[in-house]
């Protein structure tokens, strides 16, 4: 079973701090790595995504770092704000066996204290 392992399960950060969420994938080729943000009662929404031909992508306070050799990628939220409190999912599209199946990590519940 293709998997994406996400850590930590939960994270508490003070306002202004840096939130870091990590994901690792197993021995399968992937070609698209999105991060989704989900607020309570809502569906997940794309936050930022990266393809394996780059090692880092930054959008505002959100940065994805990608390490292809280690099969790891991470989300960094700089200057974390209470409004960032949500559940974050990493995901990956596998290329082998069809690229149609988006595989998700189990999620990280982020709480940013004021």
């Amino acid at each position, binding site marked *: *079973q293709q998997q994406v392992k*996400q850590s930590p399960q939960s994270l508490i950060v003070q306002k202004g701090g840096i939130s870091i969420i990590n994901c690792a994938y197993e021995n399968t080729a992937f*070609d*698209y790595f*999105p991060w*989704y943000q989900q607020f309570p*009662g*809502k*569906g*997940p*929404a*794309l936050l930022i*995504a990266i393809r394996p031909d780059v090692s880092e992508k930054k959008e505002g306070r959100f940065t994805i770092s990608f390490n292809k050799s280690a099969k790891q990628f991470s989300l960094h939220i700089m200057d974390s704000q209470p409004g960032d409190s949500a559940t974050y*999912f990493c995901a990956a*599209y596998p*290329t082998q066996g*069809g*690229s*149609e*199946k*988006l*595989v*998700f*990590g*189990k*999620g990280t519940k982020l709480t940013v204290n004021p």
Partner: protein
Amino acid sequence: DAGITQSPRHKVTETGTPVTLRCHQTENHRYMYWYRQDPGHGLRLIHYSYGVKDTDKGEVSDGYSVSRSKTEDFLLTLESATSSQTSVYFCAISWAGNTEAFFGQGTRLTVV
């Protein structure tokens, strides 16, 4: 929510009854997906469709069937609901197999 409507939004049903959830899109996206979300398990793919009448199983497809007779509609049927199928169900759409997926608001299903 990117032109995706899930119905119903909430449903309570009894064990053993059939249940159908509907996902309707106005974006003309080729791919449609059904996921279930449970605490500690994240989002798990039930079934997906890559075109009209073209569907395939995901990782947790047992007890579920799907149909897609039109581009805009993707139906998920629980043939005989069980308590283990109590969950929040999300429909998602994407233009291609490796592009951004847009999610609906979800359907909270409770099987009693």
